[in-house]
């Protein structure tokens, strides 16, 4: 069984940006109340004790969670104070960076809250996809936050969302972010977008260029993490995830909405609410076990449409969240994932073959040395000093 219990606190439905692909609904000023937050902390600690999970993974999400920074710090402090001695807790914060200041970052780092920044690429692309409430680009304010964040944590993660409109610029985006100083890239697709074959072909070309970029950097002995490539190499170099190792939707992972409703994953927390996926409520006794079990079982059911596929075990078709975003249901496999995996997997494997043929030392250590993550972290810290 997985030892991690992951809970996400959605601190508010409000956000100062209006990202084109945002799925969380109308931006209303509905913050999580202090009472709900306290009840949430108590509930998570109680669940951790019940499930015997020695690791707690607390994530802050929104809307923009930094709008409710006091509440955020309050929740983190309560966890630090009240967690059992034999339980470790880690914090993650996903932010658009517009409200991130040096003093606030100091507070976050003091509480060991790991900050992940959402940046969609060079300024023009970022502005196009992530305008603010007034319709103006947000890149200027984000660019101010980048050096501040990287100074505090050289291993900070950056999340980029690829949409059909930005599909042709994946390589450019990563390169730009690399030049800004980021080394941990989390590239993800907007799975709810109406992707077409034509878009996928454009994305494929972009990935091919990105593969060349990746190879070049690896040949230079650079250290970095590019999720879309590393995860697919990992799916070959390490055994496929068995159900117990995955997020186990609704059981070892859940989200707390600002009103106290409990959902299986961040994807289901919207301003309007998705009652069919609500698995309980903090004000009404916590989890509704039958709903929780039902959602979990639906998400774990085998996908008939994937039957006989050679990529099973390497593909992400198990992710209920993505399936929901793409198809509106957790029981059907996402066609976007299907095409994306079938397109990206050979690109990554060909790249892996090339690096392996050259016996690229960085590639070998990155994927076969269990101590690599620690070494990588230490090296980054040393470099930043």
């Amino acid at each position, binding site marked *: 069984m997985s030892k991690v219990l992951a809970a996400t606190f959605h601190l508010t439905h409000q956000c100062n940006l209006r990202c084109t692909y945002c799925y969380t609904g109308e931006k209303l000023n509905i913050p999580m109340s202090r009472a709900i937050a306290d009840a949430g902390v108590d509930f998570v600690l109680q669940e951790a004790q019940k499930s015997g999970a020695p690791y707690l993974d607390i994530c802050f999400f929104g809307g923009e969670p930094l709008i409710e920074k006091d509440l955020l710090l309050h929740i983190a402090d309560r966890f630090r104070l009240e967690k059992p001695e034999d339980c470790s807790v880690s914090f993650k914060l996903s932010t658009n960076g517009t409200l991130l200041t040096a003093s606030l970052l100091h507070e976050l780092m003091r509480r060991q809250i790991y900050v992940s920044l959402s940046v969609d690429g060079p300024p023009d692309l970022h502005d196009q996809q992530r305008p603010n409430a007034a319709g103006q680009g947000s890149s200027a304010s984000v660019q101010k936050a980048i050096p501040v964040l990287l100074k505090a944590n050289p291993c900070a993660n950056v999340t980029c969302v690829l949409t059909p409109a930005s599909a042709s610029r994946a390589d450019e985006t990563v390169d730009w972010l690399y030049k800004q100083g980021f080394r941990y890239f989390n590239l993800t697709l907007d799975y709810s977008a*109406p992707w*077409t*074959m*034509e*878009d*996928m072909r454009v994305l*494929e*070309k972009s990935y*091919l260029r990105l593969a*060349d970029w990746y190879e070049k950097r690896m040949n230079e*002995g650079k250290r970095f993490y590019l999720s879309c490539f590393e995860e697919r*190499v990992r799916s*070959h*170099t*390490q*055994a*496929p995830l*068995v159900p117990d190792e995955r997020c186990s939707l609704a059981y070892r992972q859940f989200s707390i909405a600002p009103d106290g409703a409990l959902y299986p994953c961040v994807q289901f927390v919207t301003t309007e609410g998705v009652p069919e996926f609500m698995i309980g409520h903090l004000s009404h006794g916590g989890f509704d076990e039958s709903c929780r079990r039902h959602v979990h079982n639906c998400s774990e059911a085998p*996908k008939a*449409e*994937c*039957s*006989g*596929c*050679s*990529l*099973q*075990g390497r593909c992400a078709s198990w992710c209920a969240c993505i399936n929901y975003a793409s198809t509106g249901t957790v029981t*059907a*496999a*996402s*066609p*976007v994932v*299907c*095409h994306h995996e*079938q397109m990206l*997997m*050979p690109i990554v*494997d*060909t790249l*892996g*073959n*090339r*690096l*392996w*043929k050259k*016996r690229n*030392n*960085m590639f*070998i*250590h990155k*994927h*076969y*040395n269990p*101590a690599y993550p620690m*070494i990588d972290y*230490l*090296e980054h810290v*040393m*470099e930043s000093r």
Partner: protein
Amino acid sequence: MTTKSPLQVKPLRRYIKPRYPSYNDPNPLAHPYARPYPFSKRFVQWALASGLVGASAVSADAQQTNPAPPLKNPFDLKSLGLPYQPMMFGTGLPERLKEKDVREAAARAFAAEGVAVSTNYLWREGTQELILDAYDTVSHIGYVVLPYYKLGPGTEREAGWRNDNQSKDASWLARHKAYFKEMKSSQDARKSLLDYLKTMDPARVPESRQKQYQALVDQLHDNINATVETETFANMMLDGTFHRVRASYLPDLEAIVEQTITTNRKSIRHAGLKRLQILEEHRMLTEQRPVSAPYMLEFNIAYNLINKVAFELSGVRQNVAAKDRWELLTRIQRTLFNIQETQEGPFFMQKLKSALVNGTDWTALEAMGHYIDQIQASMDEIEALTMEAESGKRFVAMIDWLGPHTEIRPGVVEQRDRPPYPQARPDWKDLDKETRARLIAEHQKAYEEAYKNANEQAEELSIQRLEKEIRQFIQWARQEGKY
């Protein structure tokens, strides 16, 4: 305005396995020539200052100054790829040396080390039996090559990520054996092969399917309902357990099944005739005779059932050596044709049962089953032999075909990658269609040639490596066995 094509979920039936090592392969960092992590100067200085390097760094220089490692068994249980993880079709297994090459390498290694061996030595320990390929009764050193078809019960990992539960319960095998033993000893004519259906492995043949078969068999001797009969027969023909067994030697099986499903009883007869024709091509049948549809139905069922019996007797799986399988099937088929020769007409099943229970063909079948039990190595037998080697009693190198010893390791030679995507060649962008096609063809040809050469070189290196490992094994065995 062009219409954009929406996406659909389409399973990918075949996928070429990447060349870089997977989680099933040895860790490349465990290789003696693996390079240490390229720490930055700054990091090394810091680590030296804090004493970290002394504790954790991997140094190639350090390896060179170490004394030569003591001899060790390169064929110990850990180094075998057993029990093996069944792989999904399409993800592929690493390329392996040919069985012939493995045998030749082993023979060369033993000759080079001066071990005189006798072939096909029967090792027996309690109830365990295994025919060793070569064994020297003086030095107690030998070897057995374990290709896929020689791997018996327990050698397949029971529960993998595919949640394969087929191999979990082997109690049905015991039921089969008990049933046939009883049938043989009682000489009871009332017992027939039809009862065999009841002992089918529930994990492989669901109960509903068994009922269908039973219904079909019942109807064969009563009023035959053409619709039910055709449908059930088609199901039976499609059943994976029969399918897998026969597909290897009846290439036209798919066509037969398709005809059976899609058309009427006439086609069943046609399918039967076609099968006879195929058998004739395999020199199984001396003459082709006109037969009736019910007769052919019975014939097919009997044929399938007896094949299943034979293969289950041979050790749970169908992975019997091609040669042995051929011989076994020849015997079975001859039994059937002997009956066919002497007793014409319907009620074939009853006659077959009678022939099997009372005739001598059963003995031949049983003997063959026993022989196959002897040549197949179960996990218990492999462990017992390993224990014997560890205790210095007997040294048998188990050259496991699924393990790292016989693997043709990728990347030993260059140019094994696929040619680049044409889209990835910006210099080809402005070329006309014909030039580009020619370049692609040239590239493809060069790649195929390089790939072929690379394969041959890698294979050669793998053979040399295996030979060296076997010689190391003999040296270790001599050291341990004080010979």
